[in-house]
């Protein structure tokens, strides 16, 4: 008796089960770690998954946490579908946040109707510009974008740090934090006395646009062709370089919007800890969501749930909040393994006697 891996796609009915199986398997795997942290895994999962939804306040907080993830997930997806491995959404987010701050602090006597669109455009353009150099290097010189976009993340972070320790240092507190943006530049709250802001609606709109572009437009089909088989796309007369460049730049732009949303919706000023790695989590989300707009939305909400739960679980059971990160990472690994099952299956073969 031996095992054989065959390239046979999973039946259609089984496909929705695969992400579910991934989640279950992840929890089985992480149970050991929770036990090592001297907590009851079942209690921990309750706080991770159920407790955040049991009260209105924390349920809204899940949406708040999901907002930047929806945006970075969409950003990464847009690039990955086009065959451009943009690992630099984190840096593009910082570029967008910087632009939003620069614009927002000068909007003292301007109406919100002007201030907010101006910040969004500024953030989008800043994200795009931050993505431009590696994208051009990829398209013109075939320099690996994984390395260049990743390295630029550190550059972005250091530049923000330099700004905050130099020209933008708060003159009163001397903290490395920029002056606040004008009141009119702040995103309106969707629900009074909560942190849920306009950025959430914006993120949903971008998810819908993502879905529309990828599945309904000629450009989306071109992007998919370029991402799946650049040779065949070139042969068919598609401008591979232009298509890849556009998907890289739009991806950077959406990353920039994520930065705007964090500034105008949550912090109101620039600090260097504005993102705890939303750009990287976006990669997890895009992968979990199988580069599909609705999948990305679900994945972002799910990670938002675990992030919210991680805080409750550490308060309630005294385990480190890092456990949430561990679960996310385990989930990614398991999902990648499970995604293989969509295309392959393992069969037992009997050796003939």
């Amino acid at each position: 008796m031996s095992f054989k891996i065959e390239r046979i796609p999973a039946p259609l009915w089984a496909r929705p089960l695969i992400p579910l199986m991934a989640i279950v398997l992840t929890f089985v795997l992480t149970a050991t770690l929770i036990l090592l942290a001297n907590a009851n895994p079942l209690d921990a999962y309750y706080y991770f998954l159920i407790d955040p939804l049991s009260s209105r306040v924390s349920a809204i907080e899940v949406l708040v946490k999901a907002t930047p993830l929806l945006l970075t997930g969409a950003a990464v997806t847009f690039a990955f579908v086009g065959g451009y491995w943009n690992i630099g959404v984190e840096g593009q987010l910082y570029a967008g946040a910087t632009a939003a701050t620069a614009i927002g602090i000068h909007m003292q006597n301007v109406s919100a109707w002007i201030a907010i669109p101006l910040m969004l455009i500024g953030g989008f353009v800043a994200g795009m510009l931050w993505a431009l150099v590696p994208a051009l290097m990829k398209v013109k010189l075939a320099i690996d974008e994984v390395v260049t976009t990743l390295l630029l993340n550190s550059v972005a972070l250091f530049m923000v740090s330099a700004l905050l320790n130099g020209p933008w240092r708060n003159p009163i507190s001397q903290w490395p934090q920029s002056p606040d943006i004008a009141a009119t530049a702040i995103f309106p709250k969707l629900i009074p006395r909560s942190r849920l802001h306009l950025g959430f609606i914006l993120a949903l709109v971008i998810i819908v646009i993502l879905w529309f572009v990828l599945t309904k437009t000629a450009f989306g089909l071109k992007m998919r062709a370029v991402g799946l088989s650049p040779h065949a796309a070139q042969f068919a007369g598609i401008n591979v370089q232009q298509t890849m460049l556009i998907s890289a730049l739009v991806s950077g732009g959406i990353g920039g919007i994520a930065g705007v949303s964090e500034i105008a919706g949550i912090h109101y000023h620039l600090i260097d800890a504005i993102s705890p790695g939303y750009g990287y989590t976006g990669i997890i989300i895009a992968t979990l969501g199988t580069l599909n707009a609705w999948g990305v939305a679900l994945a972002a909400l799910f990670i938002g749930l675990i992030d919210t739960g991680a805080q409750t679980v550490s308060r309630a059971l005294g385990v480190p909040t890092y456990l949430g990160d561990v679960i996310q990472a385990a989930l990614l690994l398991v999902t990648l393994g499970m995604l293989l099952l969509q295309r392959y299956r393992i069969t037992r073969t009997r050796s003939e006697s």
Partner: protein
Amino acid sequence: MDRPNAIEMRHIYKRFGSLVASDHVNFTLRQGEIHALLGENGAGKTTLMRILYGLYHADSGEIVVNGQAAEIKSPKDAIAVGIGMVTQHFALVPPLTVTENIILGYTDGFQINLNEAHRRVAEASDKFGIPVEPKALVKDLSVGQRQRVEILKALYRNANVLIMDEPTAVLVPQEVEQLFESLERLRRQGLSVIFISHKLNEVMTITDRVTVLRLGQNAGTVETQSTSPPELARMMVGRETFGVTKTAGKPSQGKIVLELAQVAALDNKGLPALKNITLQVRAGEILGLAGVSGNGQTELAQVLDGTRLVTAGQIKVLNHDITNVGPEKVMAAGVGRIPEDRHESVVAELSVAQNMALEHLDEFTRQGVLNKKTLLEHAKKLIAEYQIKASPGDKIRTLSGGNMQKVILARVLERNPQVIIVAQPTRGLDVGATEYVRGKLLEQRRKGAAILLISEDLDEILELADTIAVIYEGEIMDILPAAAAETERLGLLMSGVKADKVGA
């Protein structure tokens, strides 16, 4: 015969999915004979031999070697019972020397005494009459020399049965002669050879017996002396002649549609692949470009497809310059392209309908939005018209080679292109699909298309072309009307002997 047969394969059955590749095939190889395994692409020749060499496992059936039942589960088992195989794609490590390649995986002990090994390889080279230079690096050797290394490697491992999978496909005629001499000598020393081929002439020249496979079944085994090429052809395809024949032998008087003037281009390594190519194709004419694999055919097709830049010269379609304008404008000029590598011209993960529309997306788009309905109807129409076994939503990669080729054909021919660039159109296709494709090309010729047919299958060129050009090391050796093209003359041209020296 007192000695048992070298190989007996009995009732070998092998299925891949729904395809029966070997349908209860019996095959016997006598001691000291050269036995051809003849058949069309996909007839099951290679499958049967891979089973014998342990690369595949038969679903049922038995193998007897020298009168003893053998269980061959891997090439290691095959080598142990004295079976060696030389495949079309050599299993050699280019940066290593000939000796190192030969002893690779066949050493005892931890240390290698290279001097001793060189000596033994040279000895074997003498003994078997296969000249190789033990200390030469494989990467510096020609294809023919590499093949000799492969043969010697098998013999060095004490093979007394040698399987050769289309050994002449990569050789020029002169190298083929050398190979045949070597095989003949080895046969006299007692080696038994299985010679896979689909070339009738070679089979008639070199073999003692012939087994013909058709659609996975044994269509008969005959003594070479008592058979003839027409009989073998009939056994191969199930009838006397091939199905499609072209209508007229007269050269086309149509206007010149496609014109190449002094075109040069580089290959992927940056070395000159095309030198000074000048060609003209007229309306209603099929120009066949013959040549041994790797003499610039791939690069020429790509240059005309718009996917490779030319470094000099000009390409014109009806006085319209299409030099280095890219695929989109090449297509707009009325050029239809059926490329050598099907998998590089369709997006495997996209659907049949999407691939059919990919070259002309604008026509299926309104203000940037895809019109799903038009896309689907277009696909349905072509599927019906070209008898493609697939539905519009199927991913291309789930299609068979023949159906995939039909998708590409449909995508190109529905537009009635003025020029068709078609490379290796029937490679890997079964008899039915091959005939279908050739029939469609002849139909386009009747409609007045100028067709450049690039093929390494000389039979295909002789069957379809009105005019034949021969390419050798990136140069056009000669251009002659098909009626005047004898196989021998083409063979000489294909091996680089200039036209003015032919017959001299």
